[in-house]
């Protein structure tokens, strides 16, 4: 009897172990391994071959022959003004799009969080609903809306507000529209999750102590929703920074973003080492400030905790 129990418990433990290992396995296979490969390529020289880069380690019959590491790709990326411009422009576009998304998303999340629970779920469903349609299709739909022969221009022309079509497509404006539209749910959902958990007693307490509604918002709700704001902004800023499809389809030829530069290096110039260096630098641009931020957060909560 006890023996039987023991076996069953053992089985469960083995199962638990697999359940714990799976995420690590997943991350190693699909995140760490590709990252190491890209890192490796970024230190190689381009050659006309398949694959189009030199191996880092040469193996001779006797064993290790030589290790060939070059920093040329990084020198190239840092020296060329073109890349600096592209990085800056990507940061600018992603940052402005994040800010607009926050300004639109916060009131929406706030409104949803204040509804009775039945209506809340319905509204959340509405936020998630666009995901049922292919992302590419939705971006194409915006082309239909924004083009000079598009629905918006036709509508404005027929009302008589304008007498010749506005240039809404193939410029930065269209990229902002596309980014804000596509990433709005990623802003709303973490904000909603945060706002929904806020203790309403705190609002009452502030009002009781003499705060008007707007003061309650500024003094209590806003500071307490910073975790939600940060999560939402990261979820919009990071993918927005490396976004390829939206600037490619909606942007003009002068809309320089890093996603497009990467595409060009990989597939047009076929310079994999430089492309890899570009993406490693992008990663650093994104990860280093986040690590710094997280450390300061831990230090701050360490002071108060």
């Amino acid at each position, binding site marked *: 009897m006890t023996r039987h129990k023991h076996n069953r418990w053992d089985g469960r433990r083995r199962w638990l172990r697999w359940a714990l290992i799976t995420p690590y396995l997943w991350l190693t296979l699909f995140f760490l391994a590709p990252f190491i490969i890209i890192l490796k390529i970024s230190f190689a020289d381009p050659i006309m071959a398949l694959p189009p880069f030199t191996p880092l380690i040469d193996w001779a019959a006797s064993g290790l022959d030589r290790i060939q590491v070059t920093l040329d790709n990084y020198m190239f990326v840092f020296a060329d003004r073109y890349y600096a411009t592209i990085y800056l422009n990507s940061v600018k576009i992603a940052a402005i799009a994040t800010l607009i998304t926050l300004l639109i998303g916060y009131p929406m999340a706030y409104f949803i969080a204040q509804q009775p629970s039945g209506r809340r779920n319905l509204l959340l469903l509405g936020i998630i609903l666009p995901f049922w349609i292919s992302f590419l299709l939705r971006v194409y739909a915006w082309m239909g809306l924004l083009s000079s022969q598009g629905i918006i221009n036709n509508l404005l022309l027929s009302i008589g507000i304008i007498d010749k079509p506005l240039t809404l497509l193939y410029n930065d404006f269209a990229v902002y529209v596309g980014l804000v539209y596509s990433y709005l749910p990623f802003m709303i959902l973490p904000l909603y999750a945060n706002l929904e958990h806020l203790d309403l007693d705190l609002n*009452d307490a502030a009002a009781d102590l003499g705060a008007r509604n707007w003061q309650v918002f500024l003094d209590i709700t806003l500071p307490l929703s910073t975790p939600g704001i940060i999560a939402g902004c990261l979820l919009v800023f990071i993918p927005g920074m490396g976004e390829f499809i939206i600037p490619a389809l909606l942007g003009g030829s002068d809309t320089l973003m890093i996603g497009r530069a990467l595409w060009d290096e990989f597939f047009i110039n076929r310079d994999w080492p430089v492309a890899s260096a570009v993406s490693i630098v992008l990663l650093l641009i994104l990860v280093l400030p986040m690590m710094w931020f997280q450390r300061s957060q831990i230090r701050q909560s360490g002071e108060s905790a």
Partner: protein
Amino acid sequence: MTADTTGSTTPGIDYTDTPWLDPEARPLVQLRGLTKRYDDVAAVANVDLEIFAGELFAILGGSGSGKTTLLRMLAGFERPTEGQILIDGVDMTSVAPYDRPINMMFQSYALFPHMTVEQNVAYGLKKERINKAEIRERVDKMLDLVKLGKLAKRKPNRLSGGESQRVALARALVKRPKLLLLDEPLAALDKKLREHTQFELMNLQDDLGITFVIVTHDQEEAMTLATRIAVMNSGSFAQVGTPREIYEYPCNRFIADFVGNINLLDAEVISSADHRVHLRCDAAGAELVALLDNPGDEPPPAGARRCVAIRPEKIFIDKEPPSANDRTILKGIVLDLGYFGNLSIYRVQLPSGMVLQVSAQNRRRSATRALEWDDEVYVSWDIASAILLSE
């Protein structure tokens, strides 16, 4: 404090501690026909109440009795469906919470987690746009009063339950409100701390002279703290009175049963002479005598159903029959007994099968029990101790 109660001018009688008895006193809080309905269900129904300056008034009720709704209407978080709230004679019914001279201490304490203790306490003063030096001074003084000076720079998540409670209290008191509302102020504290805090609260209230309204489900808390108690049941007041009045002179069966322990004996009136009422209780298989509380009261007619209620501690238990006059004496056996250190609780079964609860002080230090299970005992009580209730 006495400035508000003009009653002290009445010659001969000092109403300082009992302003509600003073015919000339002007109440601080007046509720007139206060009603709150949610979808036609009345959470608070037609409540009239007067609370006087300096009182420590308790609203006692079970969950769903409407006590919290009443408190939230006083604070201004809920708008009454009908009726009026007057503070110092001024109609406050539709005044927003931030404009009321009332502050509240929340059951959850509702401390702002992103602010230090000091910032929490200063928050209400900052909203009043008081100058910084005065804010500092008042906050420091208040923190000293509640013995939190050392914790001024702490965040709420590093405070114990008792400390949080004191911060919440300080935050509300520093505004010097005319009225402080306390929602279950001691519910989150453990027993020892609760008893200690009870007396701190009473002292603080006495020192500051601020009128307190406490909402609680804990009758012991209400009994020890309050000058007067309003017992609330399904949206209205079942009785309003001093703790002693509520306990010793409950006005109906609900109150008698709700507050403290009590034995309820349903009986039929046989006859009444003067203010003595003779009753027949079939359940106890005995005849009972009870007195009308006011000799002038109309005695109940013969055949009327009444309830005779008797508190466990008013019942005397012994193996020998008592000899005193004017006592109701019944015989029974000890069904159950419980030893609580300071007192013992007995459950005595009468020959009819009815069980009475009796409690007795353990006056003598003794290692052995005076009474054992199945002992034959006499239970008796002074007829003046029995409460006569209409059913």
